[in-house]
């Protein structure tokens, strides 16, 4: 019994933090939200043609405050090479003044979308915040990082490089 539990646990550990292959089944997917000020609808369909990294955050998500600057650095590093990065705010109340202060305080320059109904989680089967999703230029899900992305991770770098090279990693 203990051995079986250990095996299940090991499988669970392996699967946690991976995923994405079943989302979309290799076909393009689309995710819609609102612009930072909530004034206009936006979607990943508009971004097709170049890879897109989406990452969720909320003001109550303490881990996001550590992750967002790292994602910003990834954005700064690779935007000229065609990587589009969007921080998706999932606060239920939308992007409030306090959320804007956080954006400002962290010095974020990447685009920020507002998703107050947290449709992101349903779309990409996210099990928490932050979750990062990499779409290829065609809008297909390449990788989902449950719990956020570590841009310095060697495997993460390899996945991003492959997508930037036009290969669906």
């Amino acid at each position, binding site marked *: 019994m203990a051995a079986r539990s250990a095996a299940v*646990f090991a499988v669970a550990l392996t699967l946690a933090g991976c995923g994405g292959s079943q989302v979309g089944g290799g076909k393009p997917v689309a995710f819609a939200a609102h612009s930072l000020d909530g004034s206009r609808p936006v979607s990943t369909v508009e971004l097709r043609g170049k890879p897109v990294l989406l990452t969720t955050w909320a003001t109550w*998500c303490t881990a996001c405050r550590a992750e967002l600057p790292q994602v910003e650095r990834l954005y700064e590093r690779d935007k000229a090479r065609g990587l589009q990065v969007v921080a998706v705010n999932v606060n239920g109340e939308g992007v409030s003044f306090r959320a804007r202060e956080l954006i400002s305080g962290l010095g974020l320059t990447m685009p920020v979308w507002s998703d107050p*109904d*947290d449709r992101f989680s*349903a779309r990409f089967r996210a099990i928490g915040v932050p979750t990062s999703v990499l779409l290829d230029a065609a809008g297909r899900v390449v990788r989902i990082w449950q*719990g956020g992305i570590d841009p310095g991770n060697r495997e993460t770098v390899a996945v991003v490089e492959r997508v930037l090279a036009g290969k669906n990693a």
Partner: protein
Amino acid sequence: MRIRTRPASRWALVGVAAAVAAAAAVSAGLAGVSGTRGDPSLRGVSKPVVVATAKTASFISAVSDTRRNRVYATWSISFSNNPDTRVYVAASTDGGRTFAKPVWLARDNGAGQSVVRVDGNGRVWATWTHYDLKHEDLLDPKQKYSNPSWQELAYSDDAGRTWSRPVDVPADHGLRHGSAFGALAVSPSGKKVSVFWIDYLPVFDPRVKPAGRDAGTYLAATSVDGGKSFGPVRKIVQTGCVCCEPFGLSLDGRTALLFRGWQKATVKHDLRDIKLTVAVPGGGWTAPVSVHDDHFLLHHCPSVGPAGAVDRAGLLHVAWWTGATGRAGYWYAIRGTDGTFGTPVEIEAHPSAPNENNATITLDGNGTVWTATVGHGDFAANGNVDTSPNQALVYTITGSGKPRLVKAATVDGSYPQLAAVPGAVVEVWANAGRLLARRLEVR
């Protein structure tokens, strides 16, 4: 949505609850109520009433005072052009048919994450996190989004129309005090009032090791004189989720807290299962026990916490979401009189995390369990933008232990909350910038 059930061993307990519960006579008129043929627990659904226009409402919750046929809803709002945040309470004194104009609690411009409870005398209690907007960040003056904060507590003896002057909890907080995700438990007599919160200071303190920042420490202060004074702040749990709402309640005459745990599993992953701790005489708390060992592994914020309800037989009913591999979904379990939890039942396979407050549970006058969460549209990957709205999904769990989606109660919206009153379960939810409420008339 598909529903899968699993064998349960403790469903006799539900039968006990049902037997103990008095059958409520439904005498109310059904004007504006649509029929619901085919839903055994549901006699009809009333037309929604607008509780509030609140485009930025979040952290919505609702409770009932069943004896007095009252419902209280509370929520937070924020603004896009200034740092203010406020909390509101709206009351219904006619079982959810109408709601009074919402009351802005304490006219506090630095308030959020409110929670409301009702004691046996009908006194309504509210706690919320107060942010000191006059002062800079807790630790880093360059940042302005983590102001000093603490809990405040107030009560109302006139069905939420007027409120007492709020008291600070703890009273001796300083400007280096950080509080978030408060919870509240009130004894039936109203004498014992416990306020819970997560200590946010270590979360932001760069001197604290990462593991210490990841784990939330739940603190509590308890009053035994009806909120006039509070005992010392107690550290009750050091392994809680820092970003998930806990749920306070009175259980077996004791104060209890349901919460999402945090336990280091590997370098990258933490166990995030639901736990229960109960106060013991002398000021201590029991070691947290798992509602179920889901083995939900995640490093960061699952966001949604558990919800609980105690039936007339004293049994605790818990609903929660887990993202555990192979069992991601919305679940339900009962804690028996021996203090152990029975085999959980999956209410709904739910592969993605519901956001803030999307767990709720209550029992109607017949002893039937009602629970709700948010559902999403059909996300078939066709490459197009999906514009289907979220749906507030309501389920009942009958004496046989099988959960059943009450299709007639499905409605567009998010953050559903349920509160039982005589003859009905009142649902409060958010949709299109409004808080709405309606009665689900119990058959």
